[in-house]
């Protein structure tokens, strides 16, 4: 599914927080958005996911303009994974209940089978199915959140800081899982993160946001080589490089 975002503007109570953002993502590609808190990166993602009904500009999936209010079928194609696996899973529902919600809503068949399959796709044991979120570790919970997105058999995954609440060891597992899933299912990713190395690892192209503007779009390769133009990109890059080098 190709994604086209054109001159996207979003305001909250008269204050504009996304000021004309445009970018394209090819089918099967992954696009990363970096920026500091308050730069509007998550707001862009939420508007794409249909979680915000007050925006102007153009958001198109597969060349088709997305309406302000998305039809139910849209949510089978585009799914979102949130940052905090502690907050995004219902604490009083078992994993089975959490995963069956979407198939039930969309009237899908063989729910039992689908849950079993999606659990193994994210490398969770089948026994996790009848556990509650608090009985799982942070990494396992994030796997459940990914499974919940995958069960819709989407073509696009919108990832909002999917690993920033996790330890580096668990982050590696989740990033590998996301890379494998993309290759297997030909998914298109848009990922938001404040960590440049994580973005550069998973995404081939990166957009840098500051204060509601996307000031630069570079390939991960150019970012690595330092072929960047905007001062903010350079600053983020040098901070990241500095930390990687021994003191």
């Amino acid at each position, binding site marked *: 599914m190709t994604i086209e975002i054109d001159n996207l503007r979003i305001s909250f109570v008269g204050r504009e927080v996304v000021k004309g953002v445009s970018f394209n993502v090819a089918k099967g590609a992954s696009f990363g958005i970096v920026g*500091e*808190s308050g730069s509007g990166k998550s707001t862009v993602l939420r508007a794409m996911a249909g979680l915000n009904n007050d925006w102007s500009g153009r958001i198109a999936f597969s060349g088709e303009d997305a309406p302000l209010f998305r039809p139910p079928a849209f949510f089978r194609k585009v799914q979102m994974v949130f940052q905090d696996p502690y907050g995004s899973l219902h604490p009083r529902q078992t994993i089975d209940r959490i995963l069956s919600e979407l198939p039930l809503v969309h009237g899908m068949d063989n729910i039992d089978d689908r849950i079993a399959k999606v659990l193994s796709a994210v490398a969770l044991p089948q026994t996790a199915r009848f556990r509650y979120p608090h009985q799982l570790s*942070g990494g396992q919970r994030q796997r459940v959140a990914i499974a919940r997105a995958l069960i819709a058999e989407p073509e696009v995954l919108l990832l909002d800081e999917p690993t920033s609440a996790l*330890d*580096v*060891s*668990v*982050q*590696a*597992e989740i*990033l*590998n899982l996301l*890379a494998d899933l993309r290759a297997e299912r030909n998914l298109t990713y848009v990922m938001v993160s*404040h*960590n*440049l*190395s*994580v973005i*550069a*690892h*998973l995404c081939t192209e990166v957009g840098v946001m500051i204060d509601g503007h996307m000031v630069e779009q570079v390939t*991960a390769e150019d*970012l*690595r080589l330092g072929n960047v133009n905007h001062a903010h990109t350079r*600053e*983020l*890059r040098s*901070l*990241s*490089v*500095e*930390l*990687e080098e*021994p*003191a």
Partner: protein
Amino acid sequence: MLVDIQNLKIGFKSRTGFHQAVKGVSLKLGTEKLGIVGESGSGKSLTARALMKLLPTQTVIEADKLEFDGIDIRSASEKQMRTIRGKRAGFILQDPKYSLNPVKTVGSQVAEAWRTHKGGSKRAALEAAINLLEMVKIRDPKKVAASYPHEVSGGMGQRVMIAMMLAPDPELLIADEPTSALDATVQAEILRLIEELVSERGMGLLLISHDLPLVSHFCDRVAVMYAGHVMEELKASDLLSAQHPYTRGLLNCMPSLMHPKERLPVLTRDPEWLK
């Protein structure tokens, strides 16, 4: 020695049995910067909290030695602890959003910290607070002092927390993930500020973090913790070339901007490490 911990064990009684979280940790700290790194659940925060006697009463704490500047923490009374906490050892927590009182102005909170430990009039305390805010490099300290916590940014909030901890001139600063809620650019600023203040005032610093590269840049020594044990202790500058398989594993599984990896190596945990 400012801090002397020997064979510290911390456990919790639960409905189903007993869980040992910290299993024999030994650490020493003088006027230097010691970092504790490790994954979540490795016991790094528990160790720091035990030192300040801030754990819930049902916690089972055992140690051969648990001393702050020669004072035995295990037998110290609550009254004695109050002369240590804040006054002699400051504690900076992760998220300023939850550690500041939302219904009091920033200035009055810093002033309160000052007055509790140093006494003096309210007006003198407020003046001292503004000085402290200036010391942590807040540009318009008067204006910030008059604002409420929700009106300041995360980085500013963390500066306020630091100002509050500096008020009584402590000898030791414990910072538990002081920057993990902050942006990369702000994170570097705050750590530089902490580093500067610590070396200026000759304090000891205990920096707890899960970010290995960060610690290696800002500390003198690092203790790597895993599952309640200290895996190894080494010079911070040697951290990125550490030999222990756990430390190496943690370093390897981080994605890198400069050295891209096709696939991230996953940490394989060896039960041998815990012997």
